[in-house]
């Protein structure tokens, strides 16, 4: 399986009260469990089924993904900057494996 690598775009700084856009991407094949390989065997389902974002330890956003989400799932969502701190992003794969990324943001 290709390497599963998360990458998140968060502005390094923002004004207090500003609504920023966060773009989260993880490289993942998102096997639907419907496709067949060259020999005709069904490739079993294996997808990223959950994405979570928290800021300074508080959950702020999450998404439940189904096989209908494209490979290398991309999610963009807003966040209202109020104080400086750190984001933690988590992706959960079928079977429970977790992948995380951390980003800091300064709010002035």
């Amino acid at each position, binding site marked *: 399986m290709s390497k599963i690598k998360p990458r998140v775009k968060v502005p390094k700084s923002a004004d207090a009260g500003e*609504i920023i856009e966060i773009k989260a991407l993880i490289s993942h*094949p*998102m*096997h*639907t*469990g*419907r*496709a*067949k390989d060259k020999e005709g065997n*069904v*490739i079993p389902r294996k997808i990223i089924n959950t994405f979570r974002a928290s*800021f300074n330890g*508080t*959950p*702020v*956003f*999450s*998404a*439940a*993904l*189904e*096989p*209908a*989400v*494209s*490979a290398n*799932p*991309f*999610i*963009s*969502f*807003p*966040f*209202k900057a109020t104080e400086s701190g750190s984001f933690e992003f988590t992706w959960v794969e079928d079977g429970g494996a977790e992948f995380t990324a951390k980003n800091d943001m300064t709010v002035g």
Partner: protein
Amino acid sequence: MKYTMNFQDISRRKALGLLGGAVALSAFASPVLADAAAVSGKIKELTGGAGASEGAITLDIPEIAENGNAVKIGFDVDSPMTDSDYVKAVHVMADGNPTPEVASFNFSPANGACTASTRMRLAKTQNVVVLAEMSDGSFKQATGTIKVTIGGCGG
């Protein structure tokens, strides 16, 4: 044989279209796709039978998707996103895929706005339905149609 450009071009395009369609369909283990009833059933389940009213949601989707493997689905729900009035969740569904659910997004006032986007797989031309669950227990929905030239649902 006399060469007629138009006739030859149409034949080739048609052949490529059929080939593309055949490749897309072969990616399905099961040929059965969901339908509008699957989506309305899902909406009934999510709204507890109450249903949803139109409005408040703007969809950011293409009219035509060249590649059914990665179709942009974005939305914006008009909401102040305050502690007393915000969007709790947004559910994205498609009525022509093997199963209707695409993704669900859970929001909080910390988001400041209710908007998100992702990319989805569409097996064929179909309707996309976005259902927003508000903090007061009410629901809003919006529907859009996306034409798909080459379907994509295989892994």
